[in-house]
C-alpha cells in the first residue's frame, strides 16, 4: 500500500474515490476544496489530517456533520501543525516498539491551514515542526486574507489590496506591506521539500504532493486559493483567476529541495501583464484610479524582479 499511486493523466486520476465530501459549507466556487481534493486524491494511503481554524475548518466540521472520511482533528488557530506532528511522533514510537496492529500501513500526516494560521498565528508552531524534522506535510491554502472573520489583512496580503483593516479610500491605497515570502522562510529551515502550487496545474501539484509524501522529513506546500468573497470576483471565475495568477507570475510555481536547490516547474508560454490579474479582482479596483495608477507599474516591476530572482537562483543552484 505504501507504493506511490500512479497518476498518468486526468482520466486515470478521476478513478480516485474522494475522501472529502460535498455539502460542506464553503462558498460556491471556493478553491479550498479543490486543493484539498487534489492533495487527498494524490495518495491511496491512510491519512491523518488536521485543519487550523479558518474557512476550511469551520465549513467542513459544522456539528453534527463532518466532511472528512479520514482521521481529522481541529484544536486551535495556531496548532494544527503540532497536532499532526504529535500524532506522527506517537505513530513512530508505537512502530518502534512493535505495538502497531497493522504496521504495513503507511499513513500520511497532513495539516491544512489558511494563510492567517500559517503566516501569522501559527508561524512559531510550524517553524518548530520544520525544525524538529517531523515526517509531516503542511499545506497552506493561501487566499491572502483572513476570509473567515470578514477579510482582515494578514501578512500574506499583497500591496494595494483593500482589506477591512487596511481599507482603500481617499487617504490610503489599502495594504502597504508586501507579502511575506513564506516558501523561502520555510526552505531556510533546511527542510527536504518546500514548494508553491496552484490547483489549476493539477499535474504539477499532484507531482509535488507525491514527492512530498515520498521524502523523509517535513514538507511545506503553499497553494494559491482564490477567494470569491474577499478577492471579489464571480464564483464561476475561480479557475480563470488561478490561471491568471500563475500566468502573470504573481504566483510562480517552483520547488526548493533540501533548502537550496530551486527548480521552476512551470514557465507560462505567454506571460500575461499583471494588470489583467489586478483588473479581474474587486479588491484591486481602486488601483485603476488615476492617482493610484503608479502602483500597477510597481506591481509589474516587483513581479518581474521576483521572476528574475527565481530564475537566477535556479541557474546558480544555491
Amino acid at each position: 500500500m505504501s507504493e506511490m499511486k500512479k497518476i498518468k493523466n486526468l482520466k486515470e486520476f478521476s478513478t480516485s474515490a474522494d475522501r472529502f465530501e460535498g455539502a460542506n459549507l464553503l462558498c460556491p466556487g471556493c478553491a479550498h476544496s479543490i486543493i484539498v481534493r487534489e492533495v487527498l486524491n494524490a495518495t491511496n494511503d491512510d491519512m491523518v489530517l488536521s485543519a487550523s481554524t479558518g474557512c476550511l475548518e469551520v465549513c467542513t466540521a459544522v456539528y453534527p456533520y463532518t466532511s472528512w472520511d479520514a482521521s481529522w482533528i481541529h484544536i486551535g488557530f495556531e496548532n494544527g501543525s503540532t497536532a499532526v506532528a504529535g500524532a506522527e511522533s506517537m505513530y513512530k514510537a508505537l512502530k518502534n516498539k512493535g505495538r502497531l496492529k497493522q504496521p504495513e500501513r503507511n499513513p500520511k500526516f497532513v495539516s491544512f491551514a489558511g494563510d492567517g494560521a500559517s503566516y501569522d498565528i501559527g508561524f512559531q508552531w510550524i517553524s518548530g515542526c520544520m525544525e524538529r524534522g517531523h515526517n509531516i506535510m503542511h499545506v497552506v491554502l493561501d487566499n491572502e486574507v483572513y476570509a473567515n472573520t470578514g477579510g482582515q489583512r494578514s501578512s500574506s496580503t499583497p500591496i494595494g489590496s483593500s482589506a477591512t483593516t487596511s481599507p482603500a479610500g481617499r487617504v490610503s491605497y489599502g495594504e502597504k506591506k508586501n507579502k511575506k515570502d513564506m516558501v523561502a522562510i520555510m526552505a531556510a529551515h533546511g527542510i527536504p521539500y518546500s514548494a508553491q502550487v496552484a490547483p489549476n496545474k493539477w499535474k504539477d501539484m499532484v507531482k509535488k504532493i507525491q514527492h512530498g509524501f515520498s521524502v523523509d522529513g517535513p514538507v511545506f506546500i503553499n497553494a494559491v486559493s482564490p477567494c470569491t468573497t474577499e478577492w471579489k470576483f464571480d464564483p464561476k471565475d475561480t479557475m480563470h483567476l488561478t490561471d491568471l495568477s500563475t500566468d502573470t507570475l504573481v504566483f510562480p510555481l517552483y520547488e526548493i529541495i533540501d533548502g537550496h536547490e530551486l527548480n521552476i516547474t512551470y514557465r507560462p508560454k505567454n506571460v500575461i501583464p499583471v494588470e489583467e490579474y489586478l483588473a479581474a479582482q474587486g479588491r484591486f479596483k481602486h488601483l485603476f484610479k488615476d492617482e493610484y495608477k503608479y502602483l500597477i507599474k510597481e506591481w509589474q516591476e516587483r513581479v518581474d524582479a521576483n521572476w528574475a530572482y527565481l530564475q537566477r537562483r535556479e541557474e546558480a543552484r544555491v
Partner: protein
Amino acid sequence: MAKKGWDEFEIGAMLRTFDGKIDDIAGTRQEDRAYSQNSSYTASVADWRLIKPIFNKDYCIDCQFCWIYCPDVSIISRDKKLIGVDMDHCKGCGICVEVCPTNPKSLLMFPEQADEETEIANWPKKDEEEA
C-alpha cells in the same frame, strides 16, 4: 434528545463518518460506503443553488476537467466516464461550465426550475466563430 445546559456538554466531540468499519477507504466508491448520519455526504446544500448545471452527454469527451475542478465533489465520474451531477451537493458555482473545453459545451447552467429533457433537446449548436 433533552436540551443540554452549557455545562453539560462533553468536552470535545468525535464524529464518526461511517457506520461500521471500512478497511480500504481509498478503494471504496462513495455508493459502497456506509455513511453515518454525521457525514456531510448525507446532508444537502441543494437549496443554495439559483442556477444548476445540466449535463449533455452527447458532446462530452470525458476530459474530466469538471471532475478535478469541482469544489463540491458533485461531478460523478465512474470508470473514466462522466455520468452525471450530484444535485444534493452542487452549489451552482458554474466552474464546471467554465472549464468545459467542448464546442458547444457539454455542461451549461440553467435556472433551477429548468426541465432537463427540454433543455437538452434545445441545446445550443456549435459556435463557429469561436472554433
